[in-house]
């Protein structure tokens, strides 16, 4: 019922994208997310979709796995679309009823917003589909390393992240055990209203909390026994190295970034009128 958190959404195919340096993948994802907020033409969305499609093909991911992550935001997209559709006024009125009206600008803005959200989630899910959470944590640690010069405890943050990842399945398993134990004593978790149900969770949360403290205590002993110290003397077994694929990936996303900027600030919708003619 609970997929192993170590691999999260990870869809292993061993492709070149999977083998890329997690730091580069994080960086490129950030670049992509920034770029997509600058997209304001249909041509721009076409480029974005093409780039995503190319990555999906190279990573040998099934389309379904990418679309699955979109499913999670379907309601947000629908809701935001409805609000946008009726709220944005400008241009030609296409339909009206009492105080409600839909304008052509509203329609365009709505479509663009929906496309932006969907493509954004697709892009972000490419990171989690091709990178394990542990790699993401390691990559993040490495990327935020410069912050230690302004006294940010980078190593501690990274340790906390990796221990949290490590203990999610353990605590989840424990929660299930406690729920079963409380059920065996007659507790009921699925009757009554919202408040009654929330209250029913209390006998689960308290033992879970107490046990977590005990675990933390034992883990601290175990770490001490293995000479844990947060000093500079630590070494790392895994060293991240940039490879050819990382540079190629960077060039691809950088080119995409430039294309989006050109489309927005230089061509400014010329491509849209060329392709779609009078439609836009």
């Amino acid at each position, binding site marked *: 019922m609970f997929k192993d958190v170590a691999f999260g959404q990870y869809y292993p195919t061993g492709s070149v994208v999977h083998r890329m340096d997690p730091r580069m993948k994080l960086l490129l994802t950030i670049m992509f997310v920034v770029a997509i907020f600058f997209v304001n033409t249909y041509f721009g969305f076409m480029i974005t979709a093409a780039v995503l499609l190319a990555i999906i093909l190279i990573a040998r991911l099934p389309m379904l796995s990418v679309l699955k992550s979109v499913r999670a935001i379907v309601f947000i997209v629908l809701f935001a679309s409805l609000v946008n559709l009726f709220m944005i006024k400008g241009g030609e009125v296409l339909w009206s009823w009492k105080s409600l009206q839909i304008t052509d600008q509203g329609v365009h803005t709505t479509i663009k917003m929906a496309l932006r959200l969907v493509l954004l989630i697709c892009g972000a899910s490419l990171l989690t589909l091709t990178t394990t959470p542990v790699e993401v944590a390691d990559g993040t640690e490495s990327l935020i390393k410069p912050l230690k010069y302004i006294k940010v405890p980078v190593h501690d943050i990274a340790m906390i992240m990796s221990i949290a990842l490590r203990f999610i*399945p353990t605590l989840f398993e424990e929660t299930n055990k406690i729920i079963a134990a409380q059920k065996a004593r007659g507790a009921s978790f699925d009757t009554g209203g919202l408040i009654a149900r929330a209250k029913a969770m209390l006998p689960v949360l308290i033992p879970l909390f107490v046990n977590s403290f005990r675990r933390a205590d034992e883990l601290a002993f175990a770490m001490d*026994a*293995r000479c844990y110290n947060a000093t500079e003397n*630590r*070494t*790392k*077994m895994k060293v991240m190295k940039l490879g050819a694929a990382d540079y190629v990936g960077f060039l691809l996303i950088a080119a995409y970034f430039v294309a989006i900027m050109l489309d927005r600030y230089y061509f400014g919708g010329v491509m849209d009128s060329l392709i779609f003619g009078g439609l836009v």
Partner: protein
Amino acid sequence: MPQIELNNASYSYRVGEGQTVRALRGVSFSVEKGEFVALTGMNGSGKSTLAKLLNGLFTPSAGDVLIEGINTRDEERTFDIRRKAGMVFQNPDNQMVATVIEDDVAFGPENVGIPREEIVERVDWALEAVGMSEFRKRSASKLSGGQKQRVAIAGVLAMKPDIIIFDESTSMLDPEGRAEIMEVAKKLNATGITVISITHNMDEAAQADRIIVLRKGRLVLDGTPKEVFASPEVEACGLALPPATELARMLTERGFAFSETVTDEDGLVEGICAQLN
């Protein structure tokens, strides 16, 4: 010089305002390199406290603990002691730091600043020694209890220790897991590593070279399994004898005579056969 030396070591901890519990009272013994020692006693006898004194997790309230001549009070050498004396804890889930198995095994060597290439070698070697090489890239949460403990042992081995302390490491495992861990412990002992096994399972203790029994924080018995099981004091310590020993004792009461104290099934069978001839 003995490898482990306790001189009149005591330990007490506070349980509230001004109240202290004396977990250990003047315990002295020494262990030579390569021994396999079982440390046993009832709950609250102080055996786990004693284990934590052996690698400097606790320092004695009075008396001294020396590991290869280094006093555990010497804070500057704490890491030296912990590298020499590794510890495998009771709960397999609460001693694993990293999600991926090989990362967890590498944790100790990373902490003490071993160069990268050597860490890789050590991790390979340690996982091989406990028979977990094929799992190295997997996630720890999918393993059985026995497998998790084997990974924990590999994590200790990667530090190249001279001593491994098992702090009730088999008590949360099923019989199969227990057997796995005992087998690994014996194998490591055969390579010259001193093993200190804290346990209340007498079948396990019977497999050691030497058994030390604690009662209310004091050392009451110290000898080979045969000597300890033959002692009348064993039951006063609240310890259940291994089934074979218990059976032999009952038979003795009914007129059987065993030439020596029975510690396992083989001994029992031999003793009975000798009687029948």
